[in-house]
């Protein structure tokens, strides 16, 4: 009996793995071909530059989310943390601009405080999830609601980066050919995290925890500490994305992170990371991120109403997960 089932599930899983592996890759090619064929200048330098630049914040956050999903949890508060960091950063720039400090110092101080906020939020979420055993889904949902309100309380209306401090955010517009500095930073971050998850002891623990948390614990791995650490890193990455967004627009917006929540999950799922944990990779997430970016950019290019865009993403998330989810475990649905 057992050998037969093993063979069967082995066959099924390899098919599933192949779908996962090539799904986003083929999606990218099809999208690019269709958009290039139907739209003039889709691959023009101008649009390509925009597309690649706008990809950076999503990639940074998806890099963190992938780790969280890999060990079997989820963080829905990333978009809201990103918003708070975004408004905090610009608000602090305005606050410190007349303090007489050097512009670079002001910039670093504002960045530092925003990132510290992200760290604190991630640590708190990790602690509540791991030590108080609140499911990550509901704990991060609570945090999402909390930080969304806090962002609006910090500033109802978008604030602009003061003109004197523009040089401090100009790094965001540095471009090498069509590839901007933000994307390069984002790629360095995600590749670094990829190496951490694949090759360091704590990173490998993430896969073990996602695969079988009980085994990881009994085998003597630091399950709780690993989880809290990853949530903390995740918070910092969300805050960093908020700073990226502020630098891009030279202004803040208290709801800027909200639409990211869905896009992050979409990017990770399209990249083949299992929502059940244990399976997936940061490299897959890179492809997933580009897929999401191209869809979004393509819809903007064609002129699809922004309100319709989320319908498309919603459907994509459902389709990607339905295609990749592991149904071999009977009667068990994750989260």
């Amino acid at each position, binding site marked *: 009996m057992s050998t037969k089932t*093993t063979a069967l599930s082995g066959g099924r899983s390899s098919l599933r793995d192949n779908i996962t592996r090539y799904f986003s890759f083929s999606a990218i090619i099809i999208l690019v071909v269709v958009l290039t064929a139907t739209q003039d200048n889709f691959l023009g330098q101008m649009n390509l530059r925009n597309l690649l630049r706008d990809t950076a914040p999503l990639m940074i956050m998806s890099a963190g989310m992938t780790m969280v999903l890999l060990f079997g949890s989820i963080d829905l508060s990333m978009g809201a943390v990103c918003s708070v960091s975004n408004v905090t950063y610009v608000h602090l720039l305005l606050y410190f601009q007349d303090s007489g400090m050097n512009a670079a110092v002001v910039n670093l101080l504002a960045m530092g405080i925003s990132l510290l906020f992200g760290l604190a939020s991630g640590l708190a979420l990790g602690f509540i999830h791991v030590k108080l055993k609140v499911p990550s889904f509901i704990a991060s949902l609570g945090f999402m609601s909390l930080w969304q309100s806090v962002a609006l309380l910090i500033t109802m209306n978008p604030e602009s980066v003061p003109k004197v401090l523009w040089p401090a955010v100009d790094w965001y517009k540095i471009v090498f050919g069509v590839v901007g500095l933000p994307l390069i930073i984002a790629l360095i971050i995600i590749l670094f995290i990829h190496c951490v998850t694949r090759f*360091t*002891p704590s990173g*490998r623990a993430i896969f*073990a925890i996602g695969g*079988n948390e009980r085994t990881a614990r*009994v085998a*003597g791995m630091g399950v*709780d500490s690993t989880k809290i650490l990853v949530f903390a890193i995740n918070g910092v990455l969300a805050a960093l994305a908020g700073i990226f967004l502020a630098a891009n627009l030279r202004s803040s917006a208290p709801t800027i992170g909200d639409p990211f929540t869905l896009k992050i999950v979409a990017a990770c799922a399209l990249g083949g990371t299992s929502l059940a944990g244990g399976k997936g990779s940061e490299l897959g997430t890179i492809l997933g991120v580009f897929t999401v970016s191209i869809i979004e950019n393509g819809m903007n290019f064609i002129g699809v109403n922004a309100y319709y865009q989320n319908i498309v993403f919603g459907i994509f998330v459902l389709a990607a997960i339905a295609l990749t989810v592991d149904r071999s475990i009977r009667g068990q649905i994750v989260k």
Partner: protein
Amino acid sequence: MSEMERNEAQAAAVETAQPAGHIGTDVLFSAKDITKTFGGTQALKGVELEVHPGEIVGLVGENGAGKSTLLKIIIGAQPQTAGTMTLHGKPYAPKTPMDANREGVGMVFQEQSLIVTLNVAQNIFFGHEKDFKSGPVINWGRMNKEAAEVLADVDITDIPPTKKVSDLNFATRQMVEIAKVMNVTKQSGTDHCLILLDEPTSVLNEAEVENLYKQMRKIADRGHGIIFVSHHLDEILHITDRIYVYKDGTSVGSLDTKDANEAKLYEMMVGHDTTTEYYHLDRQTVPQEEVLLEAKDLGLHGVFKHVNFQLHKGEVLGLCGVVGSGAEEVCEVLCGDEKPSFGEIYIRGKQMKFSSPKQALKEGVLMIPKERLFEGIVSTLSVEDNISLSNASELAKGPFVSAQAVREQANKWIQDLRIKTNGPKELLRQLSGGNQQKVVFSRALASGAEILLLNHPTRGVDVGAKEEIYALIRNMTDEGKAVIVLGDTTDECIGLCSRLLVMKDGLVTGEFEAPADHKPSQVDVVSLMM
């Protein structure tokens, strides 16, 4: 329950018990040549069972003898691999417990199967709500009334049917469960039902046990058959009419209760001792002086207490006990998985308070868990990644784990332990049970832990792999490691260990020295376990 109280309860039960003259001669239920294979292992190797109307049949055997497996097959929770069953002389092959219920077979499960968020009446008629429909809605009043009648039928009058099950204590829940099963079978419409009771007395006090005996006898007197499984031989001897003894998935024999006594049953249960080569007795080491681990008055609230022992270098210490004796929990406390409520643990003379298995591993204590699939392996990872789970940081050069070191380590263990795999990259879920267990052993050995807690190390592996695992345990002690074994059988425990602690109901009831040339007899050990 103290010895005296138990005796009183038995005496009372004897009074209520009636002579067995009412048992019919025709067969109510029979099982022939039932086998059950899980993966590569045979849990049942062709067992027989026969129940006559009005008969209470006892089923005894050690852990893993196949009692629970057989019950699960009879109730339709699992299909048998081969063999046939008949009920009322007709072929009987239930696909689900519901099927079994419809044919008049009901079971009180070892694990409580009531839904605690529902009330008593809702539980009793669970799955039969349609019978109480008045139009589109359920007539709760009628359901409650009928539930009260069902309860009264088993002499329970003090539980209101509207009470939530979560508000009842375990003993009361058990009685509700029995009432529920009685009702289910009554609805099947047959005169002679079959009731399965799997360890029903473990949570009951004396008065409740007495009532249970009374109810069982009453049920039997109506012509129903009962199969009663218990670890308490005294109970079996008092309430049953006939006893089947199982061992290692086979039925050793059956005898009338009036011809049986405890000594006889112990002997049948343990069977013959296995040959010395099987356990590599020639390689059993004499424990050294140095004490690696010491437990002083260790206890876990409500589970076990007053556990004292020393574990020496090169020693294999056996913890024997049936399920619920606390032996497994001692293991969990020692490996840092659970915090002890009382007492102290000393590692190499230093007192330790572990808050996680990670800390225990730092001190060289590691457990090989009982449920391989749920706590031993990560099936989504490869063989090499599983082997390096516990020592990844030692394979790191600088911050990064060396992929080459992981591979080399895996290849070494695959060769040493003769793990059958297509290579270190193969996913663990593709391996057979025995080979998965060898991977778990590799991981434990690679971790460098000096104190290994083996919780049922040979569970679910075939005979060949078993012997290899025994050899591995001998290797461990050769290297000066200390091992605690919770054996799958008493025979295994005696064969492997140089000293045995026997536990029963959370207390250590005996200690045996077991040098290679002078092993204690199984009957002596088992008689302290049950």
